[in-house]
């Protein structure tokens, strides 16, 4: 099986600060990869590089056949294949939940308004918010906003979804509702890379867990083995989290 996402020896700095220092990993179709690690270890940067939001200095990244590091990268074609959800939701505040979801399908894919509305209802349904279609973001709780953001991304039918600490801004009870949506997605066969601090969730859902440390992939292990890591650093990291 060929990899959907493949990073090879990726280097990335911000000025003098080396953030990614030779990162390599692969994600196969339908796999769920959880990225964990201390704050500042480069997890968000890695996701942003995968989606070509940041330029890399060295190494290569292939995503669904797009060469991210290449000169001829078609960013829009890449973004049609990759969905990303941020910690801060980033919904469009001037649009309702439904309009947030309809916007890209109508103006990017040229889908008709009626069809797009049906698509939006469908996606809202999948995240359990069928009744919130007409609500503006500020009228929704954090958890609901985050689920709308997931639905907005889903509506573009991406082949890979990236999640950057999507529950970090939420109360514990709101975290649960978002994690359930992500678990459903994983069960449905979506290829996912998620940065998370939810160790329980990573253990339950992740095919693999990647432990990032000092800009490197320090350890990779199957999700179910998360409480039995090989390196003392990961053991300590997990210990500090429990």
């Amino acid at each position, binding site marked *: 099986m060929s990899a959907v996402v493949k990073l090879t020896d990726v280097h990335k700095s911000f000025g003098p600060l080396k953030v990614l220092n030779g990162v390599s990993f692969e994600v196969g179709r339908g796999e769920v990869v959880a990225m964990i690690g201390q704050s500042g270890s480069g997890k968000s940067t890695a996701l942003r590089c995968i*989606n070509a*939001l940041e330029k890399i200095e060295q190494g290569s990244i292939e995503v669904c056949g797009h060469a991210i590091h290449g000169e001829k990268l078609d*960013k*829009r*074609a890449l*973004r*049609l294949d*990759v*969905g*990303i959800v*941020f910690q*801060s939701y*980033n*919904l*469009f*505040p*001037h649009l309702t939940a439904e309009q947030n979801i309809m*916007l*890209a399908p109508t*103006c*990017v894919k040229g889908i008709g308004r009626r069809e797009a509305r049906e698509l939006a209802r469908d996606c809202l349904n999948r995240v359990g918010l069928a009744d919130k279609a007409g609500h*503006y973001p*500020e009228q929704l709780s954090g958890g609901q906003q985050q689920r709308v953001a997931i639905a*907005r*991304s889903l509506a*573009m039918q991406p082949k890979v979804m990236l999640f950057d600490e999507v529950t970090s801004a939420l109360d514990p009870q709101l975290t649960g509702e978002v994690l359930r949506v992500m678990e459903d997605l994983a069960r449905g066969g979506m290829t996912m890379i998620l940065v998370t601090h939810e160790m329980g969730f990573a253990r339950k859902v992740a095919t693999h867990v990647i432990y990032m440390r000092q800009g490197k992939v320090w350890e990779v292990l199957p999700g179910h083995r998360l409480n039995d890591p090989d390196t003392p650093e990961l053991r300590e990291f997990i210990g500090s989290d429990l």
Partner: protein
Amino acid sequence: MPSFGLGHLWFLLIAAGWTIALSAIAFLGGGVLGFFIALARISESRLLRGLSGAYVQLVQGTPLLILLFLIYFGLAIIGLDQLPALIAAGAGLTIYSSGFLAEIWRGCLQSVPKTQWEAAECLAMTRWQRLTRVILPQAMRIATAPTVGFLVQIVKNTSLASVVGFVELSQAGKLINNSTFQPFAVFLTVAALYFLICYPLSAWSRGLERRLNVGRR
């Protein structure tokens, strides 16, 4: 010697109409020009950003009076001295307004968080789509109040158009005063007419600001 009477008041009212017309030209012309300059100010091209930035600096750094002189006499030099005063004054005020409106609107565009651009980009929207469908609608709500506020400044600044021979409200007051020598009555009336034009605009601006503060962002 004639004293200030109904005939004069009629003359002032007509001049007030010219003040409004000139303000409208300045606002519409300056708005269109200023909009494109604001876009250039936030463009991805360094050249466009530099050129538009220089334009704004130049316009904002030049007194309107000098701008009007430059246009009036500059056009005369290239043989356009038959130009109606309205055109010369309109051009000067258009350039003046474009410099300030561009800067007001650039600020509004940039006050929309970067993450909004990014979210739209990640949905495969083109830069134009991001701008028109995501950023502009948000920037416009922020821009409304300061824009109307600037409109009031334009109305008051049209009084400088008299230097190119345009008879607007202030100039009309001066002319009447020259024949009646009743400065108090004349200029009080002129001031009242300015107030009648500007007050609704200020009130509208305050209303918009209130509504936007209470309403959604």
